[in-house]
C-alpha cells in the first residue's frame, strides 16, 4: 500500500519534472541572459531600422535618380574584387605556411598578419603619397631623367582602392584559414597523400572544400570591412554606398535617407551571406579529430621554395612594408620627430579600451553562440545573426543608433534621480567610456563572433549530449570541454577585436568623453587637416601597438594542441 502511494507520487513528480524540463528548455538563465545580451546589442540596429518605417523621403528619390546606381555599382565592384584578391592571397599563403616548408616559413607565420595593424585609410594615404607627384617614385624617376608624365603612376582610382584594400584585408582570410589548416586532422591530408594525390590536388579537392566555413568567415569580415570603409574611398574619390550614407546625412541633412542607404547596404550583406548559405546547402562540417599529430610538411624542390618565399613576401611588402616606410619617411621629415610624453597617455588610452572591449566582446560572443547551440530556437538564431550586422554599418551611423537608446536611458535615470533623490548627475552612459565600449561591441561583435562560431562548428555535438547524459551542467561542459577545444577561435577573435578597436575612428570621435584621445583619433585629426607628415608619428605608434597582439595571435595559431 505504502509502496503504491510512493509510486504514485513518483509518477506525478516525474510528470511535473518533465513539464518543468520543457519550460526549462526555453526559459532558463542561459536563454534569458543570452536573449538580453542579444537584445541589448541589437537595439541600436533596430533603432536604425525603425527609421525605415517612416518611408522614403524626398532626398531619397533625388539620390535614387542621380547617384544611387553608381554607388551600388562601385560597392559591389569593390566587394567582388577585394573578395577575389583576399581569397587568392589569404588562402594560398595560409596553405603554404601550414603545409609546406620553405625559406623563412617561421617568419612568414606571423609576418603575414602584419598588414592588419595598419588602418586602411592610412595605407591609402601612404600609397597616394608614394605615387604622388611630390612622392618618392615620381621624384626618383625625374631624378633619373625619365619624364613619364604626372599621370603615369595614377593609382588614385577605384582599381587602386581595390588593390590596396585587398593587400590590407587579406589577413582576415589568412588567420582564419590558417587556424583551420593547422588544426586540420593530419589524417585527412595524409590519407590523400597516401592515395597518391599530389599537393595541388589535395589542396583543391580535400583541403579547400573542408576549410570552407573558415574561409567564408574570413571573407565575411573582409566584405563587411570593405562596405563600411569611408576614409580610403573618400580620399580616393570613389563613391560607394557608405559615402552615400554620409552625403545624405551630412550634406543633405536627411537622416532618413541615410538610413535607407544603410538598409541597401545591409541588403547587400544579407544577399552575399545568404547566397553562401544557400550554396552550402545541407553540407555539414563537423569534422572530428582527436589527438591529431603535427602534419608532415611537403618538401618542395629548391626552386619552388624560392618561388614560395617570393609569393609570401609580396603581400607583406605591399600591405605593410612600403606604407610603413613612407610613414617613417614622413615622420622623419616632419618637425614632430620627438614623440612627446602625451603619447604615453594616447597609447594607454588606446590599449585599455581595446583590451576591455576585446575581453568583453569575446565573452559576449562565446556566450551567445553557446546558448544558441544549447537551445537552438529560431528567435535566438535570428538575434544572434542580427547582432553581428553592426560590422557592416559605418561607425557614424551606428553612433546615432546607439546614442538614441543610450540617451533615452540617461534622461530617464537622471530624471528619476532628480525627482526622488534630488541628485544632480550628468549622463551615466553617453559620453562615458562605458558607452564607448558598448558602442564598440555593437560595432565589432562580428569580429569575435565569426571565429568563435567557426571553431564551434568544428566541434562535435556529441560532447553536449554526453555531458547531458552524465548530468554535467552546460556551464561546466563549456568550461571543461568546449573552451579548451575552441580556444584558438576565442583568442583569434579577441585579438582581431583588439586590433580593430585600436584602429577604430568614427565611433570614437563622436562617442568619446571630453578630452579623450586615442592614437587613431590623433592620427586622423592631423591627417584630415592635411598634415600628413605630422600624422605619421601617431600612425606609426598605432602600427607598433597593433603588432604586439598580432604576434601573439600567430604564436597562438601555430601552437598545436
Amino acid at each position: 500500500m505504502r509502496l503504491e502511494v510512493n509510486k504514485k507520487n513518483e509518477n506525478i513528480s516525474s510528470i511535473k519534472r518533465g513539464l518543468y524540463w520543457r519550460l526549462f528548455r526555453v526559459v532558463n538563465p542561459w536563454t534569458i541572459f543570452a536573449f538580453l545580451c542579444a537584445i541589448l546589442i541589437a537595439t541600436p540596429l533596430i533603432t536604425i531600422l525603425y527609421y525605415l518605417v517612416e518611408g522614403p523621403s524626398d532626398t531619397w528619390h533625388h539620390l535614387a535618380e542621380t547617384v544611387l546606381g553608381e554607388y551600388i555599382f562601385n560597392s559591389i565592384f569593390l566587394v567582388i574584387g577585394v573578395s577575389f584578391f583576399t581569397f587568392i592571397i589569404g588562402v594560398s599563403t595560409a596553405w603554404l605556411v601550414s603545409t609546406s616548408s620553405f625559406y623563412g616559413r617561421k617568419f612568414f607565420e606571423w609576418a603575414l598578419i602584419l598588414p592588419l595593424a595598419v588602418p586602411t585609410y592610412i595605407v591609402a594615404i601612404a600609397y597616394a603619397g608614394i605615387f604622388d607627384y611630390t612622392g618618392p617614385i615620381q621624384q626618383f624617376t625625374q631624378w633619373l631623367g625619365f619624364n613619364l608624365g604626372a599621370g603615369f603612376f595614377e593609382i588614385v582610382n577605384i582599381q587602386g582602392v581595390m588593390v590596396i584594400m585587398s593587400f590590407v584585408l587579406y589577413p582576415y582570410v589568412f588567420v582564419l584559414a590558417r587556424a583551420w589548416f593547422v588544426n586540420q586532422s593530419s589524417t585527412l591530408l595524409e590519407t590523400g597523400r597516401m592515395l597518391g594525390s599530389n599537393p595541388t590536388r589535395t589542396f583543391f579537392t580535400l583541403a579547400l572544400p573542408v576549410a570552407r566555413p573558415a574561409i567564408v568567415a574570413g571573407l565575411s569580415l573582409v566584405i563587411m570591412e570593405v562596405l563600411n570603409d569611408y576614409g580610403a574611398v573618400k580620399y580616393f574619390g570613389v563613391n560607394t554606398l557608405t559615402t552615400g550614407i554620409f552625403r545624405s546625412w551630412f550634406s543633405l541633412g536627411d537622416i532618413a535617407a541615410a538610413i535607407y542607404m544603410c538598409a541597401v547596404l545591409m541588403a547587400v550583406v544579407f544577399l552575399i551571406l545568404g547566397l553562401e548559405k544557400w550554396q552550402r546547402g545541407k553540407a555539414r562540417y563537423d569534422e572530428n579529430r582527436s589527438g591529431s599529430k603535427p602534419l608532415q610538411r611537403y618538401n618542395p624542390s629548391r626552386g619552388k621554395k624560392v618561388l614560395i618565399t617570393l609569393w609570401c613576401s609580396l603581400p607583406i611588402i605591399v600591405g605593410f612594408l612600403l606604407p610603413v616606410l613612407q610613414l617613417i619617411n614622413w615622420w622623419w621629415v616632419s618637425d614632430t620627430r620627438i614623440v612627446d610624453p602625451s603619447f604615453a597617455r594616447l597609447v594607454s588610452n588606446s590599449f585599455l579600451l581595446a583590451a576591455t572591449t576585446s575581453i568583453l566582446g569575446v565573452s559576449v560572443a562565446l556566450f551567445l553562440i553557446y546558448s544558441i547551440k544549447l537551445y537552438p530556437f529560431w528567435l535566438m538564431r535570428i538575434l544572434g545573426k542580427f547582432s553581428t550586422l553592426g560590422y557592416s554599418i559605418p561607425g557614424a551611423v551606428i553612433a546615432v543608433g546607439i546614442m538614441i537608446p543610450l540617451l533615452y536611458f540617461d534622461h530617464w535615470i537622471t530624471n528619476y534621480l532628480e525627482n526622488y533623490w534630488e541628485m544632480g548627475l550628468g549622463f551615466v552612459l553617453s559620453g562615458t567610456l562605458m558607452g564607448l565600449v558598448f558602442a564598440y561591441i555593437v560595432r565589432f561583435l562580428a569580429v569575435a563572433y565569426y571565429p568563435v562560431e567557426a571553431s564551434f562548428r568544428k566541434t562535435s555535438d556529441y560532447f553536449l549530449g554526453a555531458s547531458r547524459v552524465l548530468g554535467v551542467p552546460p556551464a561546466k561542459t563549456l568550461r571543461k570541454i568546449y573552451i579548451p577545444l575552441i580556444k584558438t577561435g576565442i583568442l583569434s577573435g579577441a585579438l582581431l577585436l583588439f586590433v580593430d578597436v585600436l584602429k577604430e575612428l568614427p565611433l570614437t570621435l563622436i562617442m568619446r568623453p571630453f578630452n579623450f584621445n586615442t592614437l587613431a583619433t590623433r592620427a586622423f585629426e592631423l591627417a584630415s587637416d592635411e598634415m600628413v607628415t605630422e600624422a605619421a608619428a601617431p600612425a606609426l605608434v598605432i602600427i607598433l601597438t597593433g603588432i604586439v597582439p598580432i604576434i601573439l595571435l600567430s604564436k597562438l595559431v601555430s601552437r598545436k594542441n
Partner: protein
Amino acid sequence: MRINIPLFAGLLTLATGMLISSCVGGSSNKQVNVYSHRHYPVDQEIFKNFTEKTGIQVNVVSASADELITKLELEGSRSPADILITVDAGRLEKAKSSGLLQELNGDIFSENIAPNFRDPDNYWFAFTYRARAIAYAPDRVSTDEVSTYEQLAAPHLKNRVVMRSSEHTYNQSLMASILAHFGPQKSADWCKRLTDNFSRSPRGNDRDQLKAVAAGLGDVTICNTYYVAKLAESPIEAEREVFNSIRIIFPNQKDRGTHINISGAGLTQYAPNKENAVRLLEYLVSPEVQQKLSVENHEYPVIDGVEMSPFLQEWGDFKIDELPLGELGKHNEQAVRILDQCGWR
C-alpha cells in the same frame, strides 16, 4: 595552453573598474565644455593659455560639425556642451535654425566684429575666415583667363581644371554662394560646364589639387588660402617647390568679390557653464588670439589692427563677397542636389 578562468575574471573586473573610475570625477565649476570641428594644434595652445589666464578648464570633444549637431539634438536640454565651433557658416546656421544655439549678449562681439562676420541675431560669430581662391600654373594660364569663378566654366579651360570631390563643405559652400547669387537655373548650368572642364575625376584634398596643377595634371584649381601657405611651410622639399610653381588669385574682384567661409562659434541653448563659455568666446576674438590664429595658422582675423601671417600680407587686401554667411547654410541642400545632378562627384 589552458585558459585561466580566475585570471580572466580578474582582468575583466580590473579593466571595468578602471573604465568606471575614469568616468567619475572631473566635474567642477571652473570648466567649459566645447564641441569643436576644429582640431588644429594651435587651438590646443589657445585653450591652454585660456586655462592659465582664468583657471577655467577647457574640455573638448572634436568630431565633424554634423555629427556634433546631431549629438546636441539627441542630448537635448541636458547636453553638457557649452560651445559649438564649426569650420563653416552653413553648419552654424543649421544649428541656429534647429534651436541649438542661444543669443549672445555682449558688446565685445557686436562692436569688434564686422556685421558680415556675425549672425544678424547674434546667435553665432566668425572668429577667422579664409578665401576660396583660384590657384593656377602661371606658365600655362594668364591671370585674365581665370579672374572669376564663372571663367573656370568657360570652354577655353576644357580639360584643364582639377577639383576635389563635392563631398566636402568647401565646394558645397562655394556652390551655395553661386546659387544664392544667380538662382538654380544659372548655377546648374555653371556647375555642368565646370564639371565638363575637369581633366580628371575629383579626388584627394586641397593640397593634392595644388600638386596636380604643379604636376601638369591640370592648369587651374580652387583652394583655401591657408592650405597654400601651409604648402610653403611643408617639411617636404618637393611640396615647397609646388608652392613656388603656382600662383593664386582672388576671383571676382571687379564684381561681387571672392567667396569666403569662416571658422565660427556659438553658445549652445542649454549651456550649463554659460558665464565661462562667454569668457572663452570673448577670448577667441581678443587681439592676442586673433594674431596667433593668423600668424601660426594663416587664417584671416575678424578684428582690425592685428598682425597677419606674412603670406596673407603678401597676397594683400581683397574684396570679399558680401553675401550674408547664413545664406550658405540655407542654400546648402539645394547646392548638393545640383552637384549630384551635374555629376560633380
